[in-house]
């Protein structure tokens, strides 16, 4: 990284294209999360939903991309996220992160994923070694 990491440093945001049904099918197979509620409209409707929705772990994987294109993956020590809202199919998430503390060479990064309508679907915190 060129600029030193400090409180207030923002990570370059990661904007995703709309999450298609194909993406959900590919992620179901590749991730092993085969819960049909994410890919089978009949099952989603049987649970009272209008449509399928994205796997929470797909959004967390996008956040992982946000982090590892900012710092090498080996610098990521730990992270925790809370899934705060469902991501509907065809939504376009945007991943963001901001450094809120730097202590002993470790940055605390506050993470979020937001949809284009302003819904926050995921919030989290990562500890990333910066030196």
């Amino acid at each position, binding site marked *: 990284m060129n600029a030193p990491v400090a409180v207030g440093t923002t990570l370059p945001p990661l904007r995703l294209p709309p999450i298609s049904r194909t993406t959900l099918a590919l992620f179901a197979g590749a991730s092993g999360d085969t819960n049909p509620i994410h890919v089978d409209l009949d099952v989603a409707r049987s649970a009272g939903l209008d449509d399928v929705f994205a796997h929470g772990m797909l959004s*967390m994987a996008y956040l992982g991309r946000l982090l590892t294109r900012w710092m090498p993956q080996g610098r990521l020590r730990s992270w925790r996220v809370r899934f705060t809202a469902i991501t509907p199919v065809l939504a376009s998430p945007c991943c963001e992160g901001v450094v809120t503390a730097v202590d002993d060479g470790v940055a605390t990064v506050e993470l979020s994923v937001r949809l284009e309508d302003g819904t926050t679907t995921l919030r989290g915190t990562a500890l990333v070694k910066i030196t």
Partner: protein
Amino acid sequence: MAVDLAAALARPIAPVVALLERGRLRAFARAIGETDPVHTDVEAARAAGHPDLLVPPTFLFSVELEADPPLGWLTDLGVDLRGVLHGEQSFTYHRDVHAGEEVECRRRVAEAYAKSPTRDFLVKRTDFLRAGELVAEAEAVVIVTAL
């Protein structure tokens, strides 16, 4: 209650042992739009100092899903997966993990509590071991709602 909390705490979960396969890792990278070749190209991974393809940070969650059936720890408790939501997820890393390595997941339900008469929370903790060495840890909070 949506799930038998005492049974969730008492019932052991079978460990999962899985070989991390290059093809699967490439499919995962494609599915999440990952373009860094350390996850898909062996030569690029080696040039970056890795012995083989680098496993992305959240793929460890998928290693656990190699269990058969993948969410058997829930369905064995009689949980209807249509009523399951993923509430929280954490990872702590001790070592990088790569394609070609075998990882064992040791799992347990560490906490189980009711949030309402129809909604329960299960906290599952997982240790990931490679040749007996702890390489990562994870915690999942799962919300189970009675349908």
